[in-house]
């Protein structure tokens, strides 16, 4: 640690050492809301080199003697300026462009050096049609190549052969352990409260770690520092309200956003025999205070889902009930400040909690005796401290380094006849360093991360990372990279894979070693005439995977003793190629993604030890999204998605004693495809506030995509035994054609005299 502090102080004072070069640092903001613009390109026109703004909109660039720079980002008018002599930090305010031009533009001068990294401004995500007109970040992410939701209706993401627990989902730098509302139907991220989403599927920078498959880094809005603004939305499933206001103009702000569902209002509407109650709500709050050159941010999120179900069978004396409650809470304080023109520092202290409780019971209606009772619960709480630094060494090298630690507490409990429980307190810490190098046609990000975890015994991992880019021509970049990742916690898989969650997070123990992942990738991006084509082929190997033993029907009833229920030391093997195409033509915007892949698992005691297809292996996964801006008021959108049906194990023959099952997951469900259509109409009021009407049709041609599979048959008692006739295998779709509508009012109240 001493060495780490000395290094920081050394870098902080290094302006005196490297004085022959001129370093410019500053911030890029949205001109209307003064939200930071994340991932904006700051490009030195003279030297043909540049940098991107970080999650706070901050950049630091070594200009030497150059003065001509350009700042650009998707959905904004670029700024092209000749710099005058001025002191850092500089502030640039990008002007948003109007509705018809809100499209995904290719950045012309310097491209993303990682084809597996996608930065999506929330404006882009919001124009994609979704189920019931409900905007959802994760549903939109699932349209990208290499990203799948597994089963329809779920918001769990399976990225490049990984499982949902292998995605590090960060909300303002804090991990979120459960990402779903409404049984997976919506993600917990309220798009009104979100500024930017960054997805990294490969070529991981060393500053990220702890998961094998992806980083989903979500930044909340800081709050409008210029004007009071907000919106109110009314959808078929939920309503939302957001407001944002400066506390001190241009210096501090607060943003509050909330959502709640209406399903409670439908209680008893569909089924008189069943008593069903469901509630969902979430709240995002963020404060931003600018203090000198630095800023302090307070972020808070609270989400909660409750599902209570009770069923009384007519003429029966038994009431069956099931109560499930789950939710996340996160809170953090962050301080950022430029320590010098070259050194930028970030400090984060935070806490995140996810808890889940389920209780099932059967009660005698008359005597109120409990005839059957089963419950399980789990909780994970994580206290975090992170220190991150960014140092611009010269125009060729930009260094990132830092350290952090967390204290994770797990509590897992189940009750069925007897109470079983396990509690763990596990410290984890890490240190990393990475170098972003750019010279001529070559650029690279080389880094290393060391992490350590303790749970009765010590675990540690060294994770080297490398990503290189070579500019072959003005139109073509080629990329190659490799990453090693280590993961010390796991989410026990939900055997149903769909529906209400049963999320149990567990740490590694001396019986289950740390998961490791090695991913190598090679790709290219080609840009010409407003076309952007990205290709990235990857191969990933994962070790020490876990899954439930093969014969368990309801493992959650004894989950307090989870270690005895799992198969250990599994292997995962995934490979494939992602293709991503973007094109803008006049008022059309076109995005398409395609993935061809294979995804396997292997456990010694499953499938007789043979490798088998992972349940959510999809050979082909294709999506296309077209947006057309018509008369500046109307936006027409359409999605079409197609994917190979998921792998399934089916009985292939019937014999007197049993049905004969094939090799595990050797059959496929019918392929999945659907068309979504949407239309958005905007009307401005005299005060330049905006009404937005949104209509959408999900699954427009009513494709029956399988969600549930079952064998049906009529049993007849014959010759002393039951004989089944008319047996059929049926698939049920939970999401046929679904219309959606929402209305939204966005307002901004200009306060000139503050």
């Amino acid at each position, binding site marked *: 640690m001493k060495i780490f502090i000395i290094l920081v102080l050394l870098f902080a004072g290094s302006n005196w050492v490297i004085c022959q070069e001129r370093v410019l640092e500053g911030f890029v903001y949205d001109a209307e809301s003064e939200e930071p613009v994340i991932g904006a390109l700051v490009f030195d026109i003279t030297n043909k080199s540049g940098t991107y703004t970080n999650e706070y909109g901050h950049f630091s660039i070594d200009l030497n003697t150059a003065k001509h720079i350009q700042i650009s980002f998707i959905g904004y008018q670029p700024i092209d300026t000749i710099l005058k002599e001025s002191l850092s930090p500089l502030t640039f305010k990008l002007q948003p462009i109007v509705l018809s031009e809100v499209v995904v533009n290719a950045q012309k001068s310097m491209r993303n050096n990682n084809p597996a990294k996608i930065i999506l401004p929330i404006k882009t995500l919001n124009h994609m049609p979704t189920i019931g007109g409900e905007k959802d970040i994760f549903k939109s992410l699932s349209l990208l190549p290499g990203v799948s939701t597994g089963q329809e209706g779920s918001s769990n993401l399976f990225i490049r052969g990984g499982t949902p627990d292998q995605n590090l989902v960060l909300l303002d730098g804090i991990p979120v352990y459960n990402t779903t509302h409404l049984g997976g139907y919506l993600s917990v991220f309220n798009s009104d409260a979100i500024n930017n989403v960054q997805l990294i599927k490969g070529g991981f920078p060393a500053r990220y770690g702890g998961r094998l498959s992806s980083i989903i880094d979500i930044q909340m809005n800081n709050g409008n520092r210029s004007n009071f603004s907000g919106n109110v939305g009314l959808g078929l499933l939920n309503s939302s309200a957001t407001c944002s206001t400066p506390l001190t103009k241009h210096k501090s702000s607060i943003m509050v956003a909330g959502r709640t569902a209406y399903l409670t209002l439908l209680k008893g509407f569909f089924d008189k025999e069943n008593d069903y109650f469901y509630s969902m709500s979430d709240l995002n709050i963020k404060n931003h205070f600018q203090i000198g050159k630095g800023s302090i941010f307070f972020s808070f999120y609270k989400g909660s889902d409750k599902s209570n179900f009770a069923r009384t069978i007519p003429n029966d004396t038994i009431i069956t009930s099931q109560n499930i409650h789950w939710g996340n809470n996160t809170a953090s304080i962050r301080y950022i400040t430029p320590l010098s023109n070259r050194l930028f520092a970030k400090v984060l202290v935070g806490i995140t909690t996810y808890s889940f409780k389920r209780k099932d019971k059967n009660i005698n209606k008359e005597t109120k005796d409990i005839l059957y009772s089963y419950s399980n619960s789990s909780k994970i709480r994580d206290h975090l401290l992170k220190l991150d630094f960014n140092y611009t060494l010269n125009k060729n090298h930009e260094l990132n380094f830092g350290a952090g630690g967390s204290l994770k507490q797990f509590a897992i409990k189940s009750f069925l006849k007897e109470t079983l429980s396990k509690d763990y307190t596990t410290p984890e810490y890490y240190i990393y360093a990475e170098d972003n190098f750019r010279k001529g046609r070559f650029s690279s990000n080389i880094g290393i991360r060391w992490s350590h975890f303790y749970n009765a015994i010590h675990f540690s991992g060294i994770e080297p990372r490398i990503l290189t880019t070579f500019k072959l021509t003005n139109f073509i970049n080629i990329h190659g990279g490799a990453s090693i990742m280590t993961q010390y916690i796991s989410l026990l*898989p939900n*055997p*149903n*894979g769909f529906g209400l969650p049963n999320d149990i997070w567990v740490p590694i123990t001396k019986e289950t070693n740390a998961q490791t992942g090695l991913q190598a990738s090679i790709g290219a991006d080609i840009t010409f005439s407003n076309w952007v084509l990205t290709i990235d082929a990857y191969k990933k190997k994962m070790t020490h995977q876990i899954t*439930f033993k*093969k*014969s*368990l*029907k309801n493992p959650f009833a004894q989950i307090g003793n989870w270690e005895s229920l799992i198969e250990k030391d599994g292997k995962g093997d995934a490979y494939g190629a992602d293709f991503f195409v973007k094109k803008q033509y006049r008022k059309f915007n076109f995005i398409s993604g395609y993935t061809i892949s294979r995804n396997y698992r292997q456990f010694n005691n499953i*499938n*007789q030890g043979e490798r088998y297809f992972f*349940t959510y292996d999809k050979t082909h996964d294709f999506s296309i999204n077209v947006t057309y801006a018509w008369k500046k008021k109307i936006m027409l959108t359409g999605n079409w998605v197609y994917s190979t049906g998921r792998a*399934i*194990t*089916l*009985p*292939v*023959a*019937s*014999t*007197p*004693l*049993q*049905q*004969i*099952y*094939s090799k*595990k*997951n050797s*059959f496929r*469900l*019918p392929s999945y495809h659907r068309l979504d259509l949407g239309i958005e109409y905007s009307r401005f009021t005299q005060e330049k506030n905006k009404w937005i*009407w949104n*209509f959408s*049709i999900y699954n427009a041609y*009513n494709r*029956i995509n*399988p969600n*549930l*599979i*079952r*064998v049906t048959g009529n049993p007849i008692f*014959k010759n002393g035994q039951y*004989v*089944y006739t008319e*047996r*059929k*295998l*049926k*698939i*049920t*779709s*939970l999401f*046929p*054609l*679904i*219309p*959606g*509508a929402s*209305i939204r009012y966005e307002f901004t109240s200009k306060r000139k005299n503050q």
Partner: protein
Amino acid sequence: MKTFLLFFSLFVLVSCERRKETEIAIPHIKKPVVYGVISPEDGAICAITISKPVTSNNEFKPITDAFVVLERNQTNYDTLLYKAPYYYSTKDIMVDGEYSLFVQFGEYEVRSEPIKINKKISILTYDYTIDLDSTVNMKMSFKDDALAINSCSAKIYLIKPDSTKYTPLKTGGPGNYSSGPIYLSPLGFYNNHYLDDGKVHFFNRQYRLKDSPFYHIEIDSIAGIKYILRSYSPSIISFYQSLNENRQIEIGSSTAPDPSWSNIIGGYGFFGAYRKDSTILLW
């Protein structure tokens, strides 16, 4: 707002009529089904039929014209003859040697993987007490090796005071699967055994004869029990474990059923062996 309500109403009407369910075809991999067991105590027996599609009814007709040969040490040992509803061997089964089964009928020809006769579990000691509520508490020990701990089952017959006939009693243990003369009794029963110094014990197994839901027999009305213990070859254990495990799993769940176990090459089913030991306890 009027436009919004108009579109909303239209969408709701459109969504009222919609199909939600359809059928998918399951391929049928048609193969012969062979269940064969051999025992030095009871001889050899084999049942043969042909598999059916999963979506058909589960009535199976026995194959009566098959050519069935029991092989010992890779040479023909005996040809099994059909005597409804099964094929039987006419020769005694010897304890040593490696056995396999060859079956041919119509276009089908299947052969089992070779098996060996497993060890016999002998009843070493037994003791019992009868409680005031007529519960028989029985403790037995068996001479066995560690491998047999998971490979035995028990069947109990009641002995009436003035009769030589035995009445079978269902023990109520889990997994009480019986298939007629092939007679593979409850494997779940072994959960009540534990190993101690190379012996398998029934750990204070209680037979509540009075409360038996099937026979309602008062303890005073029987003179004792006949206790039959079977120990099985690994092939039978593997087959039944696979069968039991897959019964627990629902199609479509991500914890998918595992492939069904079989040692019949080119077919379904199993070929296995068992040993039998019996004791009569009178009180």
